[in-house]
């Protein structure tokens, strides 16, 4: 075995420092996470049934509401509630659907409320369709072009639970011209409790 009986030279130091710097630069700037983190995004629109491999998902209806009334409480929106009715049909086994988030055109993210009978997650098994209502309080400038992102993985910690997994991103279909009408409408919605969907996952409303 040869021991490192070497003198410290500027050249050697530069080599080591340079190598470490290059390594750090590679780790920092190469998109290495993209390969391990990126979810498989399935895009769709309201009424379309999306195949997420672990479930079939249909967003059946999107409404807005100023007020939500539930069994024990009423919730008033800080902006307006976007009420998303969705139907899950699990296809592999019992599955919990923990992710529900609205994203606006500016990239801002909005999480659902659990007030007034709204759900923030769902759980279902194969063999039936399960209807769930999510309610998101959003400001006026988030309405146009907003999308809802639903998945079995949770969205907290930067969508950590959705890595390398199928995620549905559904355009809520709100055009800029509709925003005024939606914002000014004084709707009150009573979200239905989660339950068996009246129809199969075809998306038709019953």
């Amino acid at each position, binding site marked *: 075995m040869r021991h490192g009986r070497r003198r410290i030279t500027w050249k050697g130091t530069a080599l080591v420092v340079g190598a470490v710097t290059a390594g750090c630069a590679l780790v920092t700037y190469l998109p290495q996470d993209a390969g391990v983190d990126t979810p498989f995004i399935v895009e769709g629109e309201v009424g379309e049934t999306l195949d997420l491999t672990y479930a079939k998902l249909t967003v059946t209806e999107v409404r807005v509401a100023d007020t939500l009334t539930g069994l024990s409480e009423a919730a008033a929106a800080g902006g307006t509630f976007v009420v998303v009715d969705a139907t899950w049909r699990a296809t592999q086994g*019992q599955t919990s659907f923990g992710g529900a988030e609205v994203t606006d055109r500016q990239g801002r993210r909005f999480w659902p409320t659990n007030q007034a009978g709204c759900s923030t997650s769902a759980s279902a098994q194969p063999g039936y369709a399960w209807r769930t209502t999510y309610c998101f309080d959003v400001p006026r400038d988030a309405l146009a072009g907003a999308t809802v992102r639903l998945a079995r993985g949770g969205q907290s910690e930067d969508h950590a639970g959705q890595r390398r997994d199928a995620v549905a991103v559904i355009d809520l279909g709100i055009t800029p011209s509709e925003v005024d009408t939606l914002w000014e409408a004084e709707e009150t919605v009573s979200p239905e409790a989660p339950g068996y969907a009246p129809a199969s996952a075809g998306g038709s409303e019953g």
Partner: protein
Amino acid sequence: MTTLVTPAVPGPGQGEPPGAAPSLRPGMLPGMIPPDAQAPRPRRSWGRRNAVWLVLLPIAIVVAAGASSFRVWAFWWPVGLHHEVDRVALGEPAHLAGEYYDAFGLDVPERAQTTVLREIDATVTSVEQVDQLPAPEYGDPVVIPDGSVAYAVQVHFAAELRTDLSLCQITLVAEDGTRYGDSTTDVLGSSNRCSTPEAEGFVSEQPEWEVTSFVLADPGAEITQVRLGFGGPEHVTFELP
């Protein structure tokens, strides 16, 4: 590990009195040995010099993989039905034996904090589609939802008295691998699927008993197996004709 600077090792002929300011050449720290002081040795090839590490490398990889494999049995293996201990045809008895750890001893206090061997003989006597679901023990009647069909699974059990039956799963497996009814709660809201409806607690009260569990499935599904387990990893499989 390669170190750039090794501790001062006074070599032969380098034993200067410590403390005295030695006249070192520029770029050298005290105690360092000039590179040209090394005895010239014939250079061996890179492979020869690193032969030991090259041999150790695959061994280290195997050891590292083995050391992290605890996750398989610690996190994956116990959660889910991963160990099929018996496989029989419809109507034949299957023997399900598996150990579990009873943390609290809720129904049988003397079992608290012990590992218990659970042995149950189970026979799936019939799997049939039904048009209606019976009234549940609690709550409103359940109507078979549109776009679903319901199966009634009849199972005959035989086990020692006070065998723990909690976390019972009676799952219908379709040809494509879909698992219908793998929740511990059935469609009627019973969370103790292997016990008779009148049973109190989660342990068996008779030497032999029979249960009917209802499972929703897709209309076109071709059911090929029934799986019975108690949270896993051990389970038994009944093959349907």
